[in-house]
């Protein structure tokens, strides 16, 4: 009788312990398979031609330049995307065959599998575009077509919407071309928060407190940012509503309040607080009230980040001497060390699919490299080998990254695909850092 009670209790304890062990969702098998194929070069990108945007109605210089600008935006978008290659016009081909009008079959002979075309009309201050996405091979057929309109000032966004449609209809993935990036720039002499399009266009300054602002983190549903700020003379975490322009304090505990990230369900924030004398990870609610303390060691624990399910939190800790990446469940249990390669690793971020961690690793030369590792601890990869690269952040589709490259006194934002096959500089002020790519808004 007694023995069976003991067995029962043991079973309960054991099952509770198993419950605490960090488990990972198996990532989408197709994603892993595709990633493997791209990494090893066994995957061919979709070959897309972007035809001229034909001017309808009255031809004017402004309509013509707008048409060319929009064609270039779509071309640049798809050129950067890991799934696409764009097909340039072959002048040789056009000359030799004396081709006047490039019809879909001509694009096909130049190597394109898909063709994007558009008609553009300027009526008053309004741009009206009809785009068509055609499949050229094995036979020519229209996949989709749509009419869009917007103001001239907003024409870049409209072009990005066409690129997003191409990603959706050709690659059956969600595009990210209309998402934005929050970052920090010191071009006014102070580090302030800014926002720009994914490609660096349309930068706007969103704080102007003339102090020091760092580490922006996006709300998961609305256009709001959490960030570290020194506006009161202390290191605090505040929230900024981009639409209303209003800021409010969130975490203002004694000591430092730093490196906040909003949970996937948008209800909690993982944050580093030093109110008890040492940097520890906490989970607070959206008003800053402490819900639970996750770590309790004399070492530095910082850079907490949520897995896409919200069930795990990765962070860096120097409990082993120098910072390394660890993963635990979101209650603070089941801590496991993820990185063993590299002496100094920090800034972890789970990929949106949860299969890969991106982080930075310091080399013996003191420079940082953006690296990825599977959450299983396998496939350690070093990306972009030039400059010193920090603060990597996933694009919402999980196939691309934004990061900050330090070269001499200058720092600028770059984007690349997750295998660093395509790398593109998106800021030019030489003073940009701390990027955070906006998630998909549900």
């Amino acid at each position, binding site marked *: 009788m007694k023995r069976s009670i003991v067995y029962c209790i043991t079973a309960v304890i054991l099952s509770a312990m198993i419950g605490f062990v960090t488990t990972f969702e198996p990532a989408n098998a197709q994603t892993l398979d595709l990633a493997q194929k791209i990494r090893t070069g066994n995957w061919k990108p979709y070959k897309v031609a972007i035809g001229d945007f034909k001017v309808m109605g009255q031809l004017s210089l402004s309509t013509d330049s707008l048409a060319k600008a929009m064609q270039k935006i779509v071309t640049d978008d798809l050129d950067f995307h890991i799934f696409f290659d764009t097909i340039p016009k072959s002048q040789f081909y056009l000359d030799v065959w004396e081709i006047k009008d490039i019809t879909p079959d001509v694009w096909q002979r130049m190597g394109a599998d898909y063709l994007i075309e558009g008609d553009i009309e300027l009526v008053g201050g309004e741009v009206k575009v009809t785009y068509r996405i055609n499949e050229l091979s094995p036979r020519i057929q229209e996949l989709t077509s749509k009419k869009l309109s917007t103001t001239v000032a907003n024409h870049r966004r409209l072009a990005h919407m066409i690129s997003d449609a191409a990603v959706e209809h050709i690659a059956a993935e969600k595009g990210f071309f209309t998402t934005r990036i929050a970052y920090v720039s010191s071009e006014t002499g102070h580090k302030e928060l800014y926002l720009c399009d994914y490609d660096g266009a349309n930068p706007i300054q969103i704080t102007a407190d003339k102090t*020091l602002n760092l*580490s922006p983190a996006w709300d998961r549903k609305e256009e709001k940012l959490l960030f570290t700020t020194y506006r009161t003379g202390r*290191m605090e975490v505040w929230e900024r509503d981009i639409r209303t322009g209003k800021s409010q304090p969130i975490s203002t505990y004694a000591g*430092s309040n730093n490196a906040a990230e909003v949970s996937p369900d948008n209800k909690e924030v993982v944050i580093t607080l030093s109110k008890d004398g040492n940097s520890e990870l906490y989970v607070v609610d959206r008003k800053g009230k402490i819900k639970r303390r996750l770590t309790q060691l004399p070492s*530095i624990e910082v850079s907490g980040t949520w897995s896409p399910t919200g069930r795990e939190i990765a962070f860096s800790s120097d409990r082993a001497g120098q910072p390394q990446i660890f993963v635990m469940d979101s209650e603070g249990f089941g801590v496991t060390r993820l990185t063993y390669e590299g002496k100094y690793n920090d800034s972890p971020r789970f990929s949106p699919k949860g299969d890969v961690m991106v982080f930075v690793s310091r080399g013996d030369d*003191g420079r*940082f490299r953006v690296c990825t590792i599977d959450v299983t601890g396998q496939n350690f990869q070093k990306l972009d080998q030039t400059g010193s690269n*920090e*603060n990597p952040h996933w694009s919402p589709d999980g196939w691309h990254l934004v990061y900050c490259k*330090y070269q001499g006194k200058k720092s600028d934002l770059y984007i690349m695909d997750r295998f660093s096959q395509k790398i593109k500089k998106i800021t030019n002020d030489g003073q940009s850092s701390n990027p955070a790519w906006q998630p998909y808004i549900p």
Partner: protein
Amino acid sequence: MKKYLVLLTLLTFAILVSGCGKKPAVEPEMGDRSTETTSGDTGDQGNTDQGEQVDTSTPLDFVTIYFDFDQYNLRDDARSGLKNNYEVMNARSDTRIQIEGHCDERGTVEYNLALGEKRARSAMDYLVSLGISRDRISIISYGKERPAAFGSNEDAWAKNRRAEFVTK
């Protein structure tokens, strides 16, 4: 003749003593930030002279203290700098200070903010252990955001791994 010999001996001694006192490693008291105490993570043998230092004049000002790469523990030169700063605080009993912890560029933004705070805290704890009241001191970290020197070399890095003392 004997007189001259005594004079000469005295003179030599005086020169020696004054020369000794100018060893850079034990001169943070002069408030000179550019002294080479910054890169002195190796042989700080000069510190053996510490006992001989009988400086009765009021210290001039707070001095910045420096740290080793990736470290927040106090070096010997940092401790003597803190003793100077302790004297300054004693002399100006109404002064409140903020200790600012800073780091070199070879750390990430977030980790450096935490490390800079540990440096400021080390300095604060030492001052408190010497007898300064804790409510006269606050700490803040700027990580690598406000470097004292630009450049990606050991000289600049050593100057940036520091704690500064600012009166409030």
